[in-house]
């Protein structure tokens, strides 16, 4: 164990990854051995005021881990919990943000935390039916693990109607998506859950008022729900104390790209990027860090030297010119041609646009084609300005945040690495990086 690993030993896996130290951590006995379902059982017997649960979640400072970072307790408080209509909870396990892979590990290794978190949220918002929307690609391992855990929970009498005679109902169902990135957008997800094409709805109305089947609905990310049981078990103050102001608690950081040992690490928010990089084994082959996309490809890219001085929490990453997003950092070393990266990212957005609203449907393809021509050496200098203009014209003009997410990479790549694009255009499609590094980059 290195010094750094020793330093972080007692900060690691405090929340959702807590059972990872156990054999078969995904089973009910393993989860119960760390106090799992204690909170839920206490709720069932004591039946405290629902609002008090929400207050505790608010006090913990938990923010939505799906990318936008909206305070979870506040979101729950939007639910008209005294309304007699059927309300729904929906867990967003459609984890599709490139680079992000922590929800799948929650489903694989600690599904019961998610189940308990959903049950608690159900109680807090007076909701009796929940769905876990799992992306289709998780059919292999994460979905069956979750399903198995769900069976265990039902068999143990932890879910269902009139649970343990408490008068509390809570039913949880698994739904497998069909693999579209846009179904991770909460209203696109609701449409998909209703059996329609995953096309986001315009807001307002927000899901808390008009959600699944038009009923009040709360949608949260897997990690957000799975964090709740431990927060209530150990107390909101404990959770809040784990991170800096505005960034309470822990995050599962997924590092990928040019790192030696890419992995998921659960650590307190505010952990310096440099430390996280080292905990991931440092740069692959000891290469020099060039750039980082700190929160999934939908956030702006940040030059490596800035990232090395940045802590991984909401405010710090924002100050660095980007966003914490999903906490999934894509690490790029000096051999990376930023034009190629941006073309790949823009191809993703072109393929994944749902197509319903004009700027995104037409603009994502336009940006990608411009970039393809840059790579092919068929672009002109003024088309760089056009590319930026197209991005600016998509941003803020679409139904959902997908349009912004497709524009931000373009804007940030051009802001920090414009010279690479100019070089390529001027040199018939040859990459500045390749030419500078010669054989090393090949």
């Amino acid at each position, binding site marked *: 164990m290195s010094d750094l690993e020793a330093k972080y030993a007692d900060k690691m896996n405090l929340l959702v990854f807590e059972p990872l130290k156990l054999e078969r951590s995904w089973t009910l006995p393993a989860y119960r051995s760390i106090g799992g379902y204690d909170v839920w059982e206490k709720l069932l017997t004591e039946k405290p005021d629902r609002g008090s649960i929400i207050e505790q979640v608010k006090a913990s400072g938990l923010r939505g881990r799906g990318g936008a970072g909206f305070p979870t307790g506040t979101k729950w408080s939007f639910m008209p919990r005294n309304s007699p209509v059927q309300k729904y909870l929906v867990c967003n396990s459609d984890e599709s943000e490139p680079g992000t892979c922590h929800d799948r590990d929650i489903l694989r290794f600690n599904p019961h935390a998610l189940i308990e978190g959903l049950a608690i949220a159900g109680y807090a918002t007076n909701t009796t039916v929940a769905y876990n929307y799992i992306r289709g690609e998780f059919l292999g391992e994460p979905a069956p693990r979750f399903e198995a855990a769900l069976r265990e929970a039902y068999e143990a009498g932890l879910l269902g109607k009139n649970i343990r005679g408490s008068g509390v109902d809570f039913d949880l169902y698994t739904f497998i998506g069909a693999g*579209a990135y*846009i179904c991770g957008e909460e209203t696109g997800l609701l449409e998909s859950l209703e059996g329609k*094409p995953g*096309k986001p709805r*315009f807001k*307002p109305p927000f899901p808390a008022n008009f959600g699944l089947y038009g009923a009040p609905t709360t949608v949260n990310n897997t990690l957000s729900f799975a964090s709740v049981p431990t927060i209530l078990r150990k107390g909101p103050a404990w959770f809040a104390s784990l991170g800096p102001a505005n960034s309470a608690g822990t995050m599962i950081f997924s590092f990928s790209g040019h790192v030696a040992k890419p992995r998921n690490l659960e650590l307190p928010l505010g952990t310096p990027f440099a430390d996280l990089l080292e905990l991931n084994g440092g740069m692959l082959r000891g290469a020099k860090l060039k750039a980082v996309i700190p929160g999934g490809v939908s956030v702006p890219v940040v030059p490596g030297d800035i990232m090395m001085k940045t802590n991984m929490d909401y405010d710090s990453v924002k100050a660095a010119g980007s966003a914490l997003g999903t906490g999934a950092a894509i690490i790029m070393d000096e051999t990376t041609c930023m034009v190629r990266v941006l073309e790949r990212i823009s191809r993703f957005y*072109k*393929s*994944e*646009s*749902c*197509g*319903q*609203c*004009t*700027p995104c*449907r*037409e*603009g*994502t*393809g*336009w940006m990608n*084609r*411009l970039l393809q*021509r840059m790579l092919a050496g068929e672009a002109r200098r003024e*088309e760089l300005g*056009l590319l930026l203009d197209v991005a600016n*014209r*998509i941003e*803020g*003009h*679409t*139904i959902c945040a997908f349009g912004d997410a497709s524009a931000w990479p373009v804007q940030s790549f051009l802001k920090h690495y414009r010279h690479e694009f100019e070089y390529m255009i001027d040199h018939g499609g040859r990459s500045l990086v390749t030419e500078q590094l010669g054989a090393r980059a090949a």
Partner: protein
Amino acid sequence: MTDEVVNIEVDGVPVQAKKGEMIIRATDRAGLYVPRFCFHEKLSVAANCRMCLVEVEKAPKPQPACATPVAPGMKVFTKSPRAIGAQRAVMEFLLINHPLDCPICDQGGECELQDLAVGFGRDASRYNERKRVVQDENLGPLIATDMTRCIHCTRCIRFTEEVAGIQELGMIGRGEHMKVRTYIESVVNHELAGNVIDLCPVGALVSKPYRFSARAWEMTSAPLVSPHDAVGTNLYGHVLRGRLMRVVPRANEAINEAWIADRDRFSYEGVYSADRLEQPLVRRAGEWVESDWEGALMQVAQGLKARAADSGFLVSGSATLEELYLAARLARGLGTHNIDHRLRQRDFRDQSSDPLFPGLGMPIAATDDLTGLLVIGSNLRREVPILAHRVRKAARRGAQVALLNPAHFSYQFPVAAYLTSAPRTLAGDLAAVLAAAAEAAARPVPAHLLAATQAARVGEEHRAVVRALLSGEKRAVWLGALATRHPQFADLRALAAALAEIAGASWGVLAEGGNGAGAYLAGAVPHREAGGKAAAAAGLTARDMLQRPLRAYVLFGGVEPSVDALDPDSASVFARTELVVAITPFVSEEVKRIAHVLLPIGTFAETSGSYVNCEGLWQSHGGATAPLGAARPGWKVLRVLGNLLGLPGFDYQSSEEVRDELRALCAGVSPQGYRGTHAVTPAGAASAAAAAGEVRVVDLPMYQIDALVRRAPSLQKTREGRAPATTY
């Protein structure tokens, strides 16, 4: 939505909005235009085109005016640099993959995209990539597609789902591969489907019959009223150099809203059918020869004069009010009451109890708010598509609709109770419904119907119909064309009227033709003169005239007895008569076989005239074009005949004079519902059935109902157009 007023400010101008409404509705009302493509006031909000982005104070991003609710004190900027910037951005995106070949696009000149591109587009495209090409769809004989032009506004999809109630159009694929298309390569079969042509803001969906035949700016527009059904749908006829090129909707919230039926839209093709009669024809020694008007009219006048009271007039219920009135005056001038437009009616036993005119008994628009409705003997979507749409609206708002029909017709809305009853048992089932209603409402059955209700066996199915009808406060009972064609119409009507009375419902009869109500007011019935005045002695009904030969007949307004009277045997009657005069826009084999003189007149679009719809509304139009060839407006032909017969008061200078004369006769006459006491007894029913032979009712396909639609080739190519008549 409440009537509460919210004060907002748009571009510095104070605007009053209704609480909860979207910005765009407030700006539209205030006359402040916000550009849009996907928004349509009759459809749900999609907010997908993004053209209506406006700046809202304190909002971080431009907001779609179509999907942003007003809030007190809200400041909206529709022309600020930010708003215009967003609108220009969207316009550029819309145009990059749009073929910019307006000169060869059928929508050119009336294209919303073209119009807005002038204001918000650039003079040159910055898009240097290959443009998208999309495969066309075959939506059937009425709608042509050019899907490469589609801007994905989804108006057509929302229309078919929300208004038509069918799910045949949808979005397939995603991103720039998203296409508007039919899911399974089916054609769109719906009686209102043509409205997607108007809804499509670009040239993706256009009229197949009209395509490439004219430009919007070179045509003149004339208001018209549809002659095909009792609704009185408002239309515009577009005319190029004297030729009617197409028909489009004329919005009228009280009647057809923004929609017209395909029948109203495409029947104009019949105006130019090969069957058009363009010259008077007379039969000489078995041969048809062309004649001048003078000779033909003299022959007719002399022929009629010689047979005077032994003549009969069979007139079309789709003729104009003026034509019907003059035809009625002509008949009475000859000394006969033998005139009838009720060509498909079979049972006239109770005609003395007829109301002033057959109608809905309520405003058309009030249909939307009905809470309980029973429709008896009507294939509603075929008979009155616009009204069927309104019933669908009501049903979707929770109205309980019950249907009592000889067969199970499809409706795109939830039907609360569907009672299928063969023509033979229809009256018995209605009597059972009446009995069940009397029981439920604890009201007595009128004495003249007691025998019928006592004989009826009331079952759960009848009670279900009553439960539906008694829902809510706003109730109605309607009789449709299948009831009026029924051999026991008098029984059905008496029972239905009593049912409405007991249920506290309004009561109505949906007459066939665009002027079924007008014909009554005009006196084109044997038992009533103009203004509803009872005839001293009733003349022969259409049925009588077609069963027992008179010496002379006048067929007016394109009457072809085999279809218009549903009487294949009428040929033998005409074979035994001395003179048949057909005053008609069309000549067919049948008419040539039975007639002796053919006088050409204009179709509904070629004459000024009026129609009275099922709510009693008088609507006049001035016609769109002059009649083809030597044909003349029908009212003028009748006027000259009146002059030649030496009848007094036939010196009209205009159709308006004719109308105003009739209007004066109708002044002060108030429409009353059915007040009859026609006794319905099992024995009476049996004898009516026996008189009719087999108890049968013919359901005519909707593109067979009058001479004009029968000659509209595109309508005939549709599935409905190819369908044969059904006898129940």
